[in-house]
């Protein structure tokens, strides 16, 4: 009953012509129902992707989705097309900095890193290895030519496979072996969700050369894409890729400083977030803080990952989604994240006060399974103390 009432509350807010974002934040802070694609639509709003006037949604979404399609065409489909045309000015060994081939090879370095990481995204669930219902047709019907991972696939020529047959005829057989069977690419016409994620990250890196791709971005995109691509409403699910791209871009605009090494020491960089967390811990639980000081257990050792990835590696996916409901609804993003991190420590205080350095670090790096609600309630409690 309470659950139904809750769904109704969301409907009340979402059915209005102009959505009151403040009301939505208040409600969503305590968790968005998993059903009816509520989370997907709320996140689109909370991440400032969808405008609040509902009447503008269809035109707005169409513009954005067309734009995304254009990105794919420009950055994934066309560069290779020149090669087919047999452009004589540009060639793989060209030293010209404007050479498309030069760009191609530079891009591949970024792509190689992305490729390694998307193949190890959320390995505990099979979702990302499954085929998407809505593959990108220009890519999947290209005889593999446009598939991004093909560009960075490692191949080895084996001399043993060179056969001589009679009249000077030479037959060379190449063997290609797939690197990771679980994340094996799909047949022509199909693609797996991890391939879609790879494309989004690649486009993001191309469009944001200042940041490019940093390990961990996959863990930020993963839950967003998962939420959008499992929306029960097919008219939205169909556009999961484009919508995730823009929501991810918006979210990154708020947290990208965590990912940039040169900003580590700045006010919005990762170090300052870790310092804030430590100050908060000192205020919330002096004993634990002292114990950490004594053991020289620095926040970099555990909270670097917590904060950079918005806790996405610490909990199972459903819990991450629930935590992110609160984070995205946080009026002052990402203050509440600091409180959650502190709550996680305070909840373990008895063990932490008794443990030595290795035990404590192991505990913090492998947070024990528990009802995420306990952590969130504790975080709210700490935030209300208002230090």
């Amino acid at each position, binding site marked *: 009953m309470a659950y139904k009432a809750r769904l109704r509350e969301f409907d009340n807010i979402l059915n209005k012509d102009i959505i009151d974002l403040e009301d939505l934040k208040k409600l969503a802070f305590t968790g968005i129902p998993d059903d009816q694609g509520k989370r997907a639509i709320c996140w689109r709003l909370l991440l400032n992707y969808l405008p609040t006037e509902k009447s503008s949604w269809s035109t707005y979404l169409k513009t954005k989705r067309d734009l995304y399609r254009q990105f794919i065409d420009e950055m994934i489909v066309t560069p290779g097309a020149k090669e087919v045309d047999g452009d004589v000015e540009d060639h793989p060994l060209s030293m010209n900095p404007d050479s498309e081939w030069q760009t191609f090879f530079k891009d591949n370095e970024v792509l190689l890193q992305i490729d*390694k990481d998307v193949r190890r995204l959320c*390995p505990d669930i099979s979702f990302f290895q499954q085929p998407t219902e809505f593959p990108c047709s220009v890519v999947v019907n290209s005889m593999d030519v446009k598939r991004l991972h093909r560009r960075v696939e490692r191949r080895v020529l084996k001399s043993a496979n060179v056969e001589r047959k009679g009249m000077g005829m030479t037959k060379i057989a190449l063997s290609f072996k797939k690197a990771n069977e679980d994340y094996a690419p799909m047949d022509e016409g199909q693609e797996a969700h991890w391939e879609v994620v790879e494309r989004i990250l690649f486009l993001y890196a191309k469009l944001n050369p200042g940041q490019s791709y940093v*390990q961990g971005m996959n863990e930020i995109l993963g839950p967003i894409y998962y939420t959008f691509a499992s929306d029960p409403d097919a008219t939205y699910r169909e556009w999961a890729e484009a919508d995730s791209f823009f929501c991810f871009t918006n979210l990154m605009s708020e947290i990208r400083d965590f*990912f940039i*090494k040169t900003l580590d020491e700045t006010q919005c960089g990762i170090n300052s977030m870790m310092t804030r967390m430590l100050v908060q811990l000192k205020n919330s639980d002096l004993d634990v803080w002292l114990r950490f000081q004594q*053991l020289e257990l620095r926040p970099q*050792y555990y909270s670097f990952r917590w904060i950079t990835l918005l806790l996405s590696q610490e909990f199972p996916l459903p819990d991450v989604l629930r935590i992110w409901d609160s984070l995205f609804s946080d009026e002052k993003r990402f203050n509440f994240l600091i409180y959650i991190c502190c709550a996680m420590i305070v909840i373990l205080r008895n063990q932490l006060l008794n443990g030595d350095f*290795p035990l404590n670090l*192991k505990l913090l790096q492998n947070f024990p399974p528990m009802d995420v609600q306990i952590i969130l309630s504790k975080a709210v409690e700490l935030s209300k103390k208002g230090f």
Partner: protein
Amino acid sequence: MAKKTYDLLFKLLLIGDSGVGKTCILFRFSDDAFTTTFISTIGIDFKIKTVELRGKKIKLQIWDTAGQERFHTITTSYYRGAMGIMLVYDISNEKSFENIVKWLRNIDEHANQDVEKMILGNKCDMDDKRTVSKERGEAIAREHGIRFMETSAKANINIERAFNELAEAILDKTAGRESGDHIDRVMVDRRQQASTSRSCCNN
């Protein structure tokens, strides 16, 4: 938990390019298992294993690091305390081998001068994809005067041996130092350290 369960504590560090198998090597060593389902390491990770060498119980505190450039500020802060460093490359990834030189420079800049080093050419089970010959691995190790081994976390080749050899090399150094006139003082220091941390635990 207050009981002292080891004689010596060695801090080790695993470094190398992303995806060469650092986490898998450590997992094989600490849990004797292999899985391909590892998420990428962000920042720094940590495991412990106690081994017995020459009648001494040695607790290995092993730090696993993220490979990408971005995380170096976080990870290099731990170089200083490391007594042994394993540099890992992937025998099927040329670039990861070329970067060994870069990682060595990193060690020179950030680690203690007398840190024990070892180069590991991992994934040696994947011979059909090999692009870096064993000889090249040996050559670079010889050039820098470092131990070298080819390993496979998947096929469990040389993993334990690598850690044991590195630990033994550190033990040799420690013992060498002890054989001087500070022998007793050093030993006492260690025991004191261990007992202080023990009494803290009882607080």
